[in-house]
């Protein structure tokens, strides 16, 4: 393949991969931004979302088909279901620990992650589940690169969700309340803000975004399994740190950047496909050492 074609193809791949990372990173970063918790179960909500979407699509496909007509309602239902799961996890696992040391909550988050993975493992037997759809490879040719409609919908959906989220957090009453909770919870209570409910809303939105991303990943890659959330959880964390954790545009930027790094990194001679994760996490380390606040993050006194 000519070099130009390879580069363009990797640009497309990187953007697609990056929009998955960005969507998952958004939820990660949002929850961290509001209650300073690294929710290690976040990647697993992406996995549960993929299975919920798969379940819905199996039910709908006889009736709506396995094209977008069946996929869109599956995504929406999965978002609602996983959003509620996120709220339940917060209520049961994290809320009782609101005043506890951060390490306790962090360990709890790891436990929730294992619980989700093992529950799905028990139901699926650890097999890869084929996520089959009727989406073909039709698309348009942009110069030398063929971009399928599926890929375009994927990137488009991610961008729309990110913009909506940013507007919500910066412009609305509850968005403002979320940012204020990050600064001073007691002061928020004195303003009449129901802090627990606002945190629950944060978990709902973050988890729903992870679910959307999970279903889209299932649609795109064509198979899902119980462990699919682990690595993407770590990568989303990396993306959030690179962009500046707690910062929504930062999470988007970090996600897209990471996707591109990974896509192009595999093209560097000597760094083949199997080194791509090393490449990504090496970047994480570089950022943690030289710019721990990330690209868009502001310096903060206390960090985890």
């Amino acid at each position, binding site marked *: 393949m000519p070099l130009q074609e390879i580069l363009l193809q990797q640009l497309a791949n990187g953007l697609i991969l990056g929009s998955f990372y960005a969507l998952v990173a958004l939820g990660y970063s949002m929850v961290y931004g509001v209650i300073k918790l690294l929710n290690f179960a976040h990647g697993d909500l992406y996995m549960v979302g993929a299975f919920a979407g798969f379940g819905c699509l199996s039910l709908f496909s006889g009736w709506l088909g396995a094209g977008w007509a069946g996929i869109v309602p599956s995504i929406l239902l999965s978002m609602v279901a996983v959003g509620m799961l996120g709220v339940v996890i917060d209520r049961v696992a994290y809320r009782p620990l609101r005043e506890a040391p951060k390490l306790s909550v962090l360990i709890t988050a790891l436990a929730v992650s294992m619980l989700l993975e093992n529950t799905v493992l028990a139901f699926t037997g650890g097999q890869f589940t084929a996520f089959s759809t009727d989406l073909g490879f039709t698309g348009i040719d942009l110069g030398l690169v063929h971009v399928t409609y599926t890929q375009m919908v994927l990137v488009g959906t991610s961008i729309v969700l990110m913009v909506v989220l940013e507007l919500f957090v910066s412009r609305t009453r509850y968005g*403002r*309340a979320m940012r204020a909770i990050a600064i*001073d919870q*007691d002061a928020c209570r004195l*303003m*009449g*803000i129901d802090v627990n409910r606002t945190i629950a809303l944060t978990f709902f939105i973050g988890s729903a975004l992870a679910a959307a991303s999970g279903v889209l990943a299932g649609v795109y890659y064509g198979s899902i399994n119980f462990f699919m959330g682990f690595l993407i959880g770590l990568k989303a964390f990396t993306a959030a740190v690179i962009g500046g954790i707690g910062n929504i545009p930062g999470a988007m930027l970090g996600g897209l950047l990471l996707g591109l790094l990974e896509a192009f990194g595999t093209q560097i001679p000597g760094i083949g496909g199997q080194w791509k994760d090393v490449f990504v996490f090496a970047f994480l380390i570089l950022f943690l050492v030289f710019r721990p606040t990330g690209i868009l993050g502001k310096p903060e006194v206390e960090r985890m």
Partner: protein
Amino acid sequence: MSEAVLRLEAVETYYGEIHALRGIGFEVREGQVVALLGANGAGKSTSLRTISGLVPARRGKVTFLGQDITRMPAHRIAQLGLVHVPEGRRIFKGMTIEENLDLGGFTVLDAEERRRRREAAYAMFPILAERRHRDSSLLSGGEQQMLAIARALMARPRLLLLDEPSMGLAPILVQEIMRTIRRLNDSGTTVLLVEQNARAALRLAHYGCVMETGRIVLADEAAALRANEALTKAYLGG
């Protein structure tokens, strides 16, 4: 006699094992300014934190506008119109002045009404209007106190709790804050004021309670407390 907006009866509060309030009782009537006075650690701030629900009372009863609020969560109490401006102002640093005011009006659902109240706050504190889109952490101490009061007023409180509004301010700013509180009271706001600066507080208040180690040891008309020289010497360090 005007009705009691707030009534405390035999209220006891603990911080863990520390018995911070040992049975206090008093009333705040409509239109009054009541001052809680006393030395550091006497329980003045704890009284306010108990009333606003940040540290619920273990025993006793707190009634606001005839409703028992003893065990109500803080945000519900705020929604009833009891607004507490805490010690140290606690403005949302990193957010703009305008956003701080909007958060004070969180319970106001109508955006247009919120905007009107914001403009009223700017009219009252012009210094805030000039800097409405600036980060609130750039304000001076006195300006931050103005913002904290303005933010509380966004909710149109029936009762305003002010904890040490003059703390850390230059004398001229203390005067200005006291004038502001007088103005608020003149326009009908009922105020419960905690102050270290007892003289300034008693010039403003109708009624005063002197606290010592979690109890109210003396309560009287402000004028009587002002006239009581032995008391000012003993309790108010004057």
